[in-house]
């Protein structure tokens, strides 16, 4: 390596790099990048349609599997190939040395695309995957990814070592950093969560989520920006000092950010606050980086002529916005409002599809322009730029607004489906905004494969201008201080040490703390899952359920009010890997055990909209033999697993929580969970009868009818006759409300508490006004009259009742017979003092019994006259409160 001596800046290499650039590999990876990008975008569009067209995936792999394919396709397929294409162009120029070998390059190309991407996609689409964010490819593919990264390091790093580290340009630092740190962090994020359970494993996942962006994507994207901007403007970057300040700042701080994905979780608060501080500091560093990049474009104009610079310039803007967003999202107050919402999805799209993708495109275009015989159509690239900028901007704004709306509704405690309903316009617009995005990518590819050969060379004129001389000060410098050379070595070692520090601080240390909390609070006897439950867990994982339903109740008032006691560390001690989740499209499932009946779960899996008309959940009819009443093993296993969620805590309760309060009196957050007013606060969970608030006596309103359609019609039917689409699959069948009249107290009780051991849930997430409106609709369906039987019938009926019915329905016919609490099927017997059936319905019940309850058929023991008589008798004990008359 030669040194500069007075006035002349000399090349650190002795061979022109033009002939060192392997354009074949640049082309191959560029085209592979676009092929994988377009496929990943198609996956993305299909899963976006699911949000308002829920049946879209009925003949495709499930939503979760497509979601896995989408994110891995974007990160490894598109960005991985785009970065490799750029590296084949840039490394020889940066080092003046060739990459290790073309043969290795061809093997790496084949490995990346045909041993990682193709098998990875196939495997996740057929259901072999791991439910970890940005780590969805299964472990077998992970091994190949690690091998591919090792090959990439072998391909590109030797050139830097041969060149030497003196006067190393900032892009080189980023490339070296990305190759080294990804090799370290990929196994940590993809393998460790399979070995460390629950929240402790999630801490490592959080590290990887951020390292994937911060140590793989961002460094290579910034390497491109620092390369393309000076190349296109024909001027050196504004300040190499600032660029290095940014480089070390990013590499020190990024790994510390990871836990900010789990703010308010059970992960120790010290780790959370570290991540929050690091996130804020990172925002400061990013401002330095962006300022430098913006100043480096001085003179290029607001919309540069060179398409590569234009994409690079926009990438810088996206980088600033997404980084500031990231810092903001780590703020605890803001996190309460937007975590788990589409705000985060907008953020990740801005990072991967905005910042990183635009940088990747800039790198490819820049390299492509310099391939002598490459087709190049500048006009198509112009169009692509406009389509992509408009599409991505609209998409991110839309998702950001959707997230704010969802967060606000969740904080208010609004019913879950209200947030789904409010989100639909945004979800539709998100899919619409994907049209210019997908179109932009197609046009971009067209611009690079169709057009005059070598036309891209025209833009290289600018960089062939007269060289910019270094300042006098820079030209008259002395021999570089040895200490400076050493400082880079020291900083490199420190960088790796810092990575180890971050993993220790945010991964290993939390694991120890969580393990000690588990040892104190967890029951001595673990409650392992049965083989069927374990199989169900695997199904839950492979279908991506954790990507819509979190399994962590956060330590926030809103979560506690909606779901119950926050999740303690020991609750996930057998979860390999964890299923904490980072998004809530559906509600949290931590306390699913004993919340719904198995029949409801089966009907919901088979046809979600039959029981929840507004649901956007994918259907899984493939788990059934054409009916929820004929579930296959997968359906039964999955429901069995759902019934385990929250079971261990429930079984340990209340003694376990009482003991925990005494054992960890100083752990404020553990106390918060142990002192929660309800362990399972799920609004739909059935509660014992009584204590229902009184409802207002209203007339039927449009709002009430809408509530009925959206919440009740799936089971009870549009006109309340118990003939909704799900009715055929539920036992006991939903009540035929046309044939029933309810006392106001009982109606309020049923709506407030549900009906135990039936599919009738409680509706506690609805306001009393809404429940009053619903009650009015229920009353309006009733056609039951008050006509009574003759005295002889009533006498006979009372006699029959006393002989056969009183042990369950009670002396007073109020459903409180001595056997009521010990029924083989524990559905509460009818309280005839508050529920009146029509004669016809009474006789139907007497003849056929009620499936799914302890009410047996009496048709073979009572004759027609006796059934008529007992029906009239039961109707006579009804305490008519006159509310039936209010129905229009």
């Amino acid at each position, binding site marked *: 390596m030669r040194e500069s001596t007075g006035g002349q800046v000399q090349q650190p290499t002795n*061979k022109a790099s033009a002939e060192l650039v392997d354009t074949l590999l640049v082309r191959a990876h560029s085209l592979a990048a676009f092929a994988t990008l377009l496929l990943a975008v198609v996956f993305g569009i299909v899963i976006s349609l699911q949000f308002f067209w829920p049946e879209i995936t009925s003949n495709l792999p499930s939503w979760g599997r497509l979601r896995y394919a989408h994110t891995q396709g974007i990160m490894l397929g598109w960005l991985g190939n785009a970065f490799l294409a750029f590296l084949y162009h840039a490394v020889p120029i940066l080092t003046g040395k060739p990459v290790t070998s073309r043969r290795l390059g061809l093997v790496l190309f084949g490995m990346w695309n045909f041993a990682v991407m193709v098998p990875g996609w196939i495997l996740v689409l057929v259901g072999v995957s791991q439910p970890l964010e940005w780590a969805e490819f299964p472990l077998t593919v992970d091994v190949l990814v690690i091998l591919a990264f090792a090959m990439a390091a072998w391909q590109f790093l030797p050139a830097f070592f041969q060149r030497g580290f003196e006067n190393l*340009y900032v892009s080189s630092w980023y490339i070296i950093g990305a190759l080294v740190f990804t090799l370290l962090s990929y196994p940590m994020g993809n393998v460790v969560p399979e070995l460390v359970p629950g929240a402790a494993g999630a801490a490592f996942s959080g590290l990887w989520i951020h390292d994937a962006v911060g140590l793989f994507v961002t460094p290579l994207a910034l390497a491109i920006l620092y390369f393309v901007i000076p190349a296109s403007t024909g001027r050196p970057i504004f300040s190499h000092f600032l660029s290095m300040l940014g480089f070390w700042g990013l590499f020190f*701080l990024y790994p510390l950010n990871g836990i900010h994905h789990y703010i308010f979780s059970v992960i120790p608060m010290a780790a959370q606050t570290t991540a929050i501080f690091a996130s804020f500091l990172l925002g400061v560093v990013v401002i330095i980086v962006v300022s430098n990049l913006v100043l480096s474009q001085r003179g290029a104009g607001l919309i540069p002529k060179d398409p590569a610079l234009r994409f690079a310039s926009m990438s810088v803007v996206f980088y600033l916005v997404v980084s500031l967003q990231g810092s903001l999202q780590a703020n605890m107050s803001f996190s309460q409002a937007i975590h788990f919402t589409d705000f985060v999805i907008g953020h990740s799209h801005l990072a991967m599809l905005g910042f990183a993708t635009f940088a990747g495109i800039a790198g490819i275009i820049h390299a492509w322009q310099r391939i002598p015989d490459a087709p190049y159509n500048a006009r198509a690239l112009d169009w692509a730029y406009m389509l992509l900028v408009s599409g991505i901007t609209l998409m991110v704004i839309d998702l950001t607004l959707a997230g704010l709306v969802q967060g606000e509704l969740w904080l208010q405690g609004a019913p879950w489906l209200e947030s789904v309903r409010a989100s639909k316009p945004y979800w539709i617009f998100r899919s619409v905004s994907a049209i210019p995005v997908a179109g932009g990518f197609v046009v971009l590819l067209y611009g690079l494969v169709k057009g005059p050969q070598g036309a891209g060379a025209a833009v290289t004129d600018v*960089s062939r201008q007269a060289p910019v001389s270094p300042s006098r000060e820079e030209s008259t410098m002395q021999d570089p201080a040895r200490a400076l050379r050493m400082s880079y070595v020291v900083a490199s070692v420190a960088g790796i040490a810092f990575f180890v520090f971050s993993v220790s601080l945010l991964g290993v240390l939390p694991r120890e703390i969580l393990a000690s909390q588990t040892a104190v609070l967890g029951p001595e006897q673990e409650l392992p899952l049965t083989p069927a439950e374990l199989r169900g867990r695997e199904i839950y994982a492979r279908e991506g359920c954790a990507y819509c339903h979190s399994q962590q109740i956060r330590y926030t008032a809103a979560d506690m009010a909606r779901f119950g006691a926050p999740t303690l560390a020991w609750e996930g001690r057998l979860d390999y890997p964890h299923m904490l989740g980072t998004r809530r499209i559906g509600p949290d499932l931590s306390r699913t055990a004993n919340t719904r009946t198995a029949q409801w779960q089966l009907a919901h899996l088979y046809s979600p909209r039959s029981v929840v008309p507004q649901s956007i959940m994918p259907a899984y009819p493939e788990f059934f033999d054409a009916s929820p009443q004929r579930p296959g093993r997968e359906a039964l296993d999955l429901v069995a697993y759902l019934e385990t969620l929250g079971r261990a805590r429930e079984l340990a309760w209340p003694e376990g929580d009482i003991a925990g309060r005494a054992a960890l009196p100083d752990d404020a957050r553990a106390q918060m969970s142990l002192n929660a007013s309800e362990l399972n606060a799920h609004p739909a969970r059935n509660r014992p009868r009584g204590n229902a608030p009184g409802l207002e006596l209203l007339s039927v309103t449009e709002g009430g009818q809408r509530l009925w359609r959206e919440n009740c019609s799936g089971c009870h039917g549009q006109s309340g006759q118990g003939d909704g689409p799900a009715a055929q699959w539920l036992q006991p069948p939903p009540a035929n409300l046309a044939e029933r009249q309810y006392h106001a107290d009982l109606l309020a009780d049923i709506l407030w508490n549900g009906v135990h051991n039936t599919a009738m849930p409680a509706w506690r997430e609805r306001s009393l006004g809404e429940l009053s409106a619903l009650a009015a609709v229920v009353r309006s369906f009733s056609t039951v009259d008050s006509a009574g039987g003759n005295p002889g019938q009533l006498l006979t009926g009372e006699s029959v009742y006393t002989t056969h019915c009183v042990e369950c329905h009670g002396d007073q016919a109020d459903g409180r017979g001595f056997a009521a609490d010990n029924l083989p099927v524990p559905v509460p017997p009818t309280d005839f003092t508050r529920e009146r059936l029509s004669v016809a319905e009474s006789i139907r019940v007497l003849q056929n019994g009620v499936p799914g309850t302890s009410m047996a058929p009496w048709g073979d023991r009572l004759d027609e006259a006796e059934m008529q008589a007992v029906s009239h008798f039961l109707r006579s004990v009804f305490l008519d409160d006159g509310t039936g008359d209010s129905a229009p």
Partner: protein
Amino acid sequence: MISAVIVLLTVILASGYTLLYLVRPSWRARIEQPKHYFHQQLQQYDNVSRNPSSDHEVKP
């Protein structure tokens, strides 16, 4: 506590680096030099790729 240490360390390291940059002109020049090297590499690359017959060797 650990957060405060991180903040402090980051600020100290960044301040030290900045201070050296400001008070030591020779360091300043050395730190900025890679961008000029890189720029020349780029120009040379573009020149050669546009005119492959030109001299590939860089004269010291």
